[in-house]
């Protein structure tokens, strides 16, 4: 009997390869889904006349969330922001804005128009990030659709088809066709078919055929899905030539192309109309008078009765006494600030690595991508600049701002270059997609998060081993850092989450800390 796979074994195999991780979520899908994007509902105790002072270190999204919420419940909040602006890595760059990279200061020279902006940090809001969406609704931040995947955008690799860019739709249609052909062949084998009833096998095969647009003999012979070589409206469409499977396999971009539309970056994605920092301004409309700018923290001393903060502003050292402190200063900067934190807490702070993500953008003299049937979305390149993003907004206007590079994983390759070298790298990379790119774009800006003043890093990295995930030790360090010092000092921000780099994580870290504080305050006042 060896070699025969039973039905149970086969289903177990499916479970082991993909089913188990999805299992707990399946429960949510079956009727446990909470209601829509209701505004974040923190049920904190109102303080009444029991005045409490709160120091918030850093005017990033998590800090402003705390300021906004605690102010509602009667806390007296002060936000100390080291730079000239709030928002941290929620940074929309427009005409005249300072990009304060250490060693490479830039002023943005884009045309002064509402649609001519660049979201240099956070740029996408998934529809499942309901706490963030809740605040957008509550704060009146207008949202519009963000186009992430665009089938007419390009895929380009020097190793594929002589470096000629092809459309995303060509790559994905053919790849799915070839994959479906392989699956259909496998399904026609007795052994593999065995675990399924006739009706199940028929359903599955029907799905596979449709997935890959297979012909009646279960072969992939090309598809109209990738568009027509000619005709299609007043005359019958003529099918395009197929691209050989082997040719598609010359690039490794397929890994990203087939998953770009899944998970956090799956549809529906949104962006605030006019720039991501509309969210920050939404908060500042309520708590803007609580923020001290260019106020750089020098010391944080926690005692049993409160927290004493020293900070420098206008060349003068000030002191701020508070009952509680919410701190979204990046841990790698907090290490260099005087403090009296316990050693295990400091060990955790020192463990976190700073992210290296890098972005660049150009002003386009005209919206040349629209001439190529591209409206929004991302072109993928197998070179260090990696991506070109076309704006989802400002369609059919004269100009637009394109993202010219996004290295979301590494980033040091470009960070270590001079500004001139960076720009030249993006121009020559982009020419692979748009031959006249160099002449079509101007007024470049680059954002090397690793060197941005008062941040010196992109999103925090807890796990040292991307593939294996978090170690037990990392989990312990994380939970240690999440716990407040003396019930007085909380570290917040997306750095204090297991899903850094998302605004939702920053907000949820702040909400977690406020809920913890609330319990303590309730106990004190009881």
């Amino acid at each position, binding site marked *: 009997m060896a070699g025969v796979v039973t039905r149970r074994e086969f289903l177990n195999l499916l479970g082991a390869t993909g089913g188990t991780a999805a299992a707990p979520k399946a429960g949510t899908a079956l009727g446990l889904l909470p209601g829509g994007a209701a505004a974040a509902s923190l049920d904190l105790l109102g303080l009444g006349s029991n005045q409490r002072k709160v120091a918030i270190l850093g005017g990033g999204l998590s800090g402003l969330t705390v300021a906004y919420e605690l102010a509602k419940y009667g806390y007296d909040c002060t936000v100390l922001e*080291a730079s*000239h*602006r709030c928002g941290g890595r929620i940074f929309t760059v427009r005409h*005249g*804005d*300072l990009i*304060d990279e*250490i*060693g*490479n*200061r830039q*002023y943005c020279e884009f045309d002064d128009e509402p649609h001519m902006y660049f979201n240099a940090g956070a740029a996408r809001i998934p529809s499942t990030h309901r706490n963030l969406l809740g605040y957008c609704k509550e704060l009146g931040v207008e949202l519009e659709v963000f186009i992430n995947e665009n089938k007419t955008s390009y895929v380009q690799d020097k190793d594929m088809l002589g470096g000629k860019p092809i459309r995303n739709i060509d790559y994905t249609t053919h790849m799915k066709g070839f994959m479906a052909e392989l699956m259909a062949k496998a399904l026609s084998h007795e052994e593999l078919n065995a675990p399924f009833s006739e009706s199940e096998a028929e359903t599955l095969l029907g799905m596979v055929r449709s997935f890959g647009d297979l012909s009646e003999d279960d072969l992939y012979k090309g598809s109209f899905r990738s568009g027509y070589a000619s005709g299609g409206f007043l005359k019958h469409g003529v099918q395009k030539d197929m691209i050989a499977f082997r040719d598609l396999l010359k690039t490794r971009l397929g890994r990203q192309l087939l998953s770009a539309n899944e998970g956090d970056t799956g549809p529906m994605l949104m962006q605030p109309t006019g720039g991501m920092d509309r969210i920050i301004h939404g908060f500042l409309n309520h708590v803007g008078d609580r923020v001290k700018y260019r106020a*750089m*923290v*020098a*010391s944080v001393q926690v005692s049993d009765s409160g927290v004493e903060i020293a900070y420098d502003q206008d060349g003068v050292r000030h002191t701020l006494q508070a009952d509680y402190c919410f701190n979204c200063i990046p*841990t*790698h*900067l*907090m*290490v*260099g*600030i*005087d403090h009296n934190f316990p050693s295990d807490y400091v060990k955790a*702070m*020192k463990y976190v690595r*700073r992210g290296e993500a890098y972005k660049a953008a150009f002003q386009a003299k005209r919206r040349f991508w629209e001439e190529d049937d591209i409206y929004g979305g991302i072109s993928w390149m197998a070179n260090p600049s990696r991506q070109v993003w076309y704006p989802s907004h400002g369609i059919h206007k004269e100009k637009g701002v394109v993202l010219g590079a996004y290295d979301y994983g590494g980033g040091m390759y470009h960070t*270590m270059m*001079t500004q001139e070298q960076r720009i030249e790298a993006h121009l020559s990379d982009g020419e692979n997609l748009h031959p006249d790119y160099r002449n079509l774009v101007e007024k470049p800006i680059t954002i090397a998060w690793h*060197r941005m*003043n*008062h941040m*010196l890093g992109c999103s925090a990295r807890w796990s040292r081993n991307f593939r294996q995930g978090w170690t037990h030790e990392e989990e312990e360090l994380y939970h240690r850092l999440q716990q407040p010092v003396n019930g007085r000092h909380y570290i917040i921000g997306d750095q204090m989450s297991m899903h850094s780099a998302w605004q939702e994580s920053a907000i949820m870290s702040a909400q977690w800390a406020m809920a913890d504080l609330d319990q303590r305050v309730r106990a004190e006042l009881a």
Partner: protein
Amino acid sequence: MKQILGNLFTIGFLLSISLTSAAAENEREPFDDRYCTTCHGADGRGNEGVQAPRLAGMEDWYLVRQLENFRAGIRGTHPKDIEGIAMQPMAAKLTDESIADIVQWVGSWTYIPAEITVEGDAARGQQLYAACAACHGQQAEGNEALGAPALAGQNDWYLVTQLKNFMADYRGHHPDDSFGQQMRTMSRTLGDESGVRNVVSYINTLAER
């Protein structure tokens, strides 16, 4: 008289230029070159989190020399000098005036003993340190006449990185960096990384606590 009038004209002309540019820049976010504490920590205490060394307590003449070396690309240009590469573009933007301003600013910071983070055999390190003492002083207090900075009180992890960089030719490789070249040769006497840790552990015993 003509000369004076000419000078007055020049001054008037320069003033009008600077005012125009000031007016244009007024709409833009102002900045200065006082970036030091973002990386080097509050009051220049050093920051292990971004591997930026202690500046508080550093000698004026040494600070000036290193800033000038960075600015000229004599230091911080070797591709393996990770921390130096981060510093170099910052220094490249500095003028003589801003260097003077920074040195004055650094001088205003109070020295606070650095945390001990390096473990090593201080007794063995003491033997190795004999070769260092000739320039850096018996108490690692530094010697301006010889161009050797104080080592006592510096962040120990930074001393380890720099000694390793000297040994690997990542620092002191530039032909115009005569002090660095000297240090590159001397670092060889430490043998290997354990020698580095031992000597740094000994230097830790010399710092004010």
